[in-house]
C-alpha cells in the first residue's frame, strides 16, 4: 500500500505533450500492408469469380452484361465489405486484378453511395487462365 502511488507519473504527463492525436485534423499514417478498400483492375480480370465465391460478406457481385461480347460488370459493395482481403488472396491472375488500398475513411451517409462498379471486357492475357469458376481448388495463401 502506498498512498498516491500514481502521483509521479501523473505529474510527469502534466508537462508532456498529450499522447492523443487531434484526429480529424491530424492523422496517423497507416502501416504498409494495411487492408483498406478493395479495388478492381479491370484490365486483368479474367472473370473466374474466385473472389465472388470466397468473399465472406458477399460484397462482390459479378454479372454478365453481354455474354456474347464477354462484357461483365463487377460491383463491390463497400457497405458490406469487411476488409478481410480474401478477394486479393483468391485472385489467381499475376499481377492480381483485385487489390486493396490503404483508404479507411470510407463512411458515407447512404449505403447506396458506397457501391463501386466496373463494366469491362474479360481479359484473356493469362496463358494458364482457368475458365470461369474452377471447381477444383483455389490457392488459399
Amino acid at each position: 500500500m502506498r498512498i498516491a502511488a500514481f502521483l509521479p507519473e501523473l505529474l510527469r504527463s502534466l508537462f508532456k505533450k498529450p499522447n492523443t492525436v487531434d484526429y480529424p485534423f491530424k492523422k496517423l499514417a497507416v502501416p504498409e500492408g494495411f487492408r483498406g478498400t478493395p479495388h478492381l483492375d479491370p484490365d486483368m480480370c479474367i472473370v473466374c469469380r474466385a473472389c465472388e465465391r470466397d468473399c465472406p460478406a458477399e460484397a462482390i457481385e459479378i454479372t454478365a452484361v453481354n455474354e456474347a461480347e464477354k462484357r461483365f460488370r463487377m460491383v463491390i459493395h463497400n457497405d458490406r465489405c469487411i476488409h478481410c482481403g480474401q478477394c486479393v488472396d483468391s485472385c489467381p491472375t499475376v499481377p492480381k486484378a483485385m487489390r486493396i488500398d490503404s483508404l479507411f475513411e470510407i463512411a458515407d451517409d447512404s449505403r447506396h453511395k458506397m457501391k463501386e462498379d466496373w463494366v469491362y471486357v474479360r481479359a484473356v492475357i493469362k496463358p494458364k487462365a482457368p475458365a470461369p469458376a474452377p471447381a477444383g481448388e483455389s490457392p488459399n495463401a
Partner: protein
Amino acid sequence: MAVLRTLLYLFVYPGLLFLFAYSTFCEWFDRKVFARLQNRMGPTHTGSFGLLQPIADFIKLLAKEDVVPAAADKGLFRVLPAFGLAVVSAAGLLLPVWNFDLAVPSFTSFQGDLIVLLYLLSLPTLIIFLAAWSSTNYFSSIGGARVLTMLFGYEVPLFLAVLSPAILAGSWRLAEIAAFYQAKPLLILPNLLAFAIAVVAVQAKLERCPFDIPHAETEIVGGTFTEFSGKKLALFRLMFDIEMVVSSGLLAAVFLGGFPGGALVGFAHLVVKTLFVIFLLSLIRALTSRIRIDQVVTLAWKYLAPLAVLQLLIIILLKGLLS
C-alpha cells in the same frame, strides 16, 4: 451609490454573472488539468483551448428534451434544480471578495458568516437527496441514500477542519479570519493538516472521485440524476460548478489568507487561490479510484475526524502559547 454597489455585488461581481462565468472557467480548468494528468488533450475546439466547452455543454443541455417521470413528485422535481442553484449562488455572495469593511459588518460580511456559508454549502446535499427521492427511480433512490450516508461522513471533519483556523484567528467572520492570516502568514502553516482534511471533505461534498459514489456511473447509472434531463440537469451541473468555486473560495479565505487588496488585486488573489485548490481537487480525482460507501464512512470517522480533532488540539495549545 450604495445601491449601485450592492446591485453590482449581487449581479456582477461576485454575484450571478461572475459566478456563472468563473464556474464554467473552473470546470474547463478542472477538465483540462484532469485530461493533461491523464496524458489526454481535454477540451480543445470550442473557443480557444476549448475555453467555451462548458458553456457549450450548458447550452446544449438547455436545448435538450426535458422529461419528468410520471410517478415523480412534480413540484419538487421542477423546483429543486433552481433552488439548489440559488442556494450556492447565495453562498457565493458571502465570500469576502470586496465590498466589505472590516470595522463595519454588512449583510455580506458579519460575525458568523463562516457558519452561514458552511450551512449554505450543506444545503445542496439535501437538495440532491430530495431530487433523487422525488424522481422515483431505484437508481436515484440508492443514489439519494448514498448522498445522505456520505453527508454524515464528511460533514463533521469539514466543520472541525474549518474550525481550527477560525479558533486561531479568534473570529467567526471570514473577512477577519482572512485579515488575521494576512497579518501573520506564518500561522498558515500549523493549519496545513486541517487544510488537507478540508480538501478531502470538499472533494466528498462535490461528489468527485473517489467520492463520486452517489452518481457512480458504472454502478447505478446516473445515480441521483438518473431521471434528470435537459434544463434541470444543466442547472444541477451548474450548481456543482458554482459549489466548487464557492467551496474552494471558502478554503482559500480560511486557510490561504483570503483575497486582500480591493477589487482588482483581490480578484487576482481569488483566481490564483481558487485555481490552486481546484488543482488539488483534480489531482485527487486523477489519483484515486472510487471507493465504496462503507469505506467513505470508515475513512471519515476513523481517520479524518480524529485527525481534525488532533488539529484542533494543536491549534488550541498554539493559541494558548501565543497569547
